[in-house]
């Protein structure tokens, strides 16, 4: 057991820190989705030009090919520099790209990977459907072979950046007669294909970064199928396993900073009795101390996950634990923040604005990418080997 960064690690950290602090955009990411996409692309291009694109991608695919320790350092410094989240670049960099590397053809790789890395192409995900959320394998969007095309009809939902993306990783049912995990295809869908129509969904924050997408006999070349025509489930599972990589570390580091900002806020703002600072109130202080301890635990869980990652190439089911912990903790932090803000917490202006936005936005953290209920099932069944239930 040890926790030490080597001199080489520290030198690398210095290099990364210097570059990120000098180059990370300082202006706020635009709220408008089209503007935001341009912003994301410019930042990705900047990283690409400086040789920092695809830090976890192998060098043979044009990535930086950093080992796990260096990825960790990069992600920590990324958060410390307040560098913007990849936004509309996220799916390409963290899902579609790695999936193409694992399962794509040479042609698919040669065409798409450079475009993802350089920020030229934005990707979105087309997995969930209105009737297929947690039970993804029940999806019904059809893909029917017609000559050298797949004709797609149906509907997807919760597609982040669906209205601004260029390509989609799309999961469709090609063989309705096969067992439900066997009759699926994972296909690259060009979002400009006739018959593909995204419609933005307004969320409880007021913004609309995701869409539902309708497919009306959209013709997708068979050459865009990744893996076999009925191998989509295994290709999709490869995609989902990348979510447990290091890509979420900046959010964890950021949450630690958020708690420190909240403690500072509680020292400035008047507390519940109207006389002293909020942090002088025993209940407020108790909650803040509890949150400090919990973010410390979350960071240590990340280091435990990295420790496991350094010993074994395949991520274990423990990854579900940190996602679960993060999502619920994020909500507790912002719940506390609104209580600290007191009456000010009803405003969406001034110093309350960001806290209120994140409070509202944070509801997604126990739903997106697997609800906390599904994550608890995974932990129960795969970590603790409890029997699978009928539901």
């Amino acid at each position, binding site marked *: *057991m*040890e*926790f*030490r*960064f*080597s001199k080489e690690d*520290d030198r690398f*950290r210095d290099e990364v820190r210097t570059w990120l602090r000098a180059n990370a955009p300082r202006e706020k990411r635009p709220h408008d989705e089209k503007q935001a996409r341009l912003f994301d692309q410019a930042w990705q291009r900047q990283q690409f030009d400086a040789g920092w694109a695809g830090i976890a991608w192998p060098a043979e695919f044009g990535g930086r090919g950093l080992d796990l*320790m260096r990825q*960790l*350092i990069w992600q*920590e410094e990324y958060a410390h520099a307040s560098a913007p989240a990849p936004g509309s670049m996220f799916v390409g960099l963290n899902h579609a790209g790695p999936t193409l590397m694992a399962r794509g053809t040479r042609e698919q790789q040669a065409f798409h990977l450079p475009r993802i890395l350089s920020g030229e192409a934005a990707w979105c995900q087309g997995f969930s459907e209105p009737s297929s959320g947690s039970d993804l394998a029940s999806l019904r969007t059809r893909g029917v072979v017609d000559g050298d095309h797949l004709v797609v009809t149906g509907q997807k939902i919760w597609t982040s950046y669906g209205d601004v993306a260029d390509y989609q990783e799309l999961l469709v049912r090609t063989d309705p007669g096969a067992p439900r995990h066997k009759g699926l295809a994972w296909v690259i869908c060009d979002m400009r294909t006739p018959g593909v129509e995204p419609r933005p969904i307004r969320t409880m924050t007021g913004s609309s970064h995701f869409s539902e997408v309708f497919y009306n006999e959209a013709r997708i070349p068979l050459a865009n199928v990744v893996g076999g025509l009925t191998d989509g489930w295994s290709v999709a599972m490869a995609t989902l396993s990348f979510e447990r990589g290091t890509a979420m570390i900046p959010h964890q580091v950021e949450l630690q900073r958020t708690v*420190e900002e909240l*403690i500072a806020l509680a020292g400035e703002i008047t507390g519940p009795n109207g006389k002293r600072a909020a*942090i002088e109130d025993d209940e407020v*202080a*108790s909650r*803040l*101390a*509890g949150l*400090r*301890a*919990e973010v*410390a*635990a*979350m*960071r*240590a*869980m990340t*280091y*435990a996950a*990295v*420790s*496991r990652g*350094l*010993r074994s190439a395949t991520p274990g089911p*423990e990854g579900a*634990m940190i996602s*679960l*912990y993060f999502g619920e903790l994020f909500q507790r932090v912002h719940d506390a923040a609104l209580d600290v803000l007191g009456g000010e917490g009803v405003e969406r202006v001034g110093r309350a604005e960001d806290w209120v936005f994140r409070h509202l936005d944070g509801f997604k953290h126990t739903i997106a990418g697997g609800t906390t*209920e599904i*994550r*608890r*099932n995974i*932990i*129960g*069944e795969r*970590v*603790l*080997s*409890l*029997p*699978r*239930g*009928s*539901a």
Partner: protein
Amino acid sequence: MIDLLPNAEQEAVRDSFAAALAAAAPVSRLRKPDNDDRTLFSDFAKLGWFGLGLSEAQGGVGYSAAEEVLMMREAGRQLLGPDFLATVLGARIAASAGASDLAAELVSGARAACLLAPADGFHHAFGIASDAVGVTWDANAGAVFGVDALAQREDIACLDDSLKLSRVTLPAAQTLARSGANAERFDLRADLLFSAMFVGIAEAARDMAVAYAKTRQQFGQPIGAFQAIKHTCADMAVQCEAAWSLTVFAALALEDKRPDATFQVSSAWLIAARAAKNNSRRNIQVHGGMGYTAECDAQAYAKRAQVMTALFGGERARKARLLAAPPPTDERT
């Protein structure tokens, strides 16, 4: 290198703790009215456990805080008492104070210690015995009191009926050993060891609940197939993962004298204490009516967690210390 997992040697050390404790101190022993853990101490001493974290020059094994938390986690799992922790820490305080004879007595098992926890105008002594010295500490110093200093005592019943509890009034200046001004923070060392014991309690409760959930049948299936039970068990597992990861991280912070050691140790105590309390209570709930009976070990974990987490100011004292501690500012080591 970042590695919160034990290396091969540490795994072997951990396995030897686990095997020895499972054989000598199964939790079921606590159900016997005449059980006395003190009879086990001389065997533990032969294995070097009371001097595990002391240097060889001090008569110890020379291991670090990392191996100590591995030991205390197993001690917690088998519900060794506060006197075990007091003997480990007492040897450390005595060695630090230059009382090498006393340290040697504690390391060799010739003498044991009871734990003296501050109460309202007196101390609670856990595990008092005719030959046991008393060990206590605060943020400034650690101290060992002689047998005579514990004479003024009243034996009372404890929430955890497997623990021997007394009220003692300590005479002011009668210490066998007191650490000096430049000594380490014994309150932090103690809280690290407590954290590891809490993790052991939390894990044992988790394992007991999960094992029961796999075998107990209702409505024609194991109750662990129901999400109400499965999710309870999953939460217990997450609490263990959080508590152990942070306890190891805190042990390394303390060992390496990092500036965030107070922050990490205080956090570890809070997360591990909550895991021990929550998991031991949930374990009773998973066991249903059986969990509430005296013949089921589930209650033993819950009582022990309740008592151990109440000592030295409980959660409130650690929260106050955490909020006053400087947060980590840089991952650099």
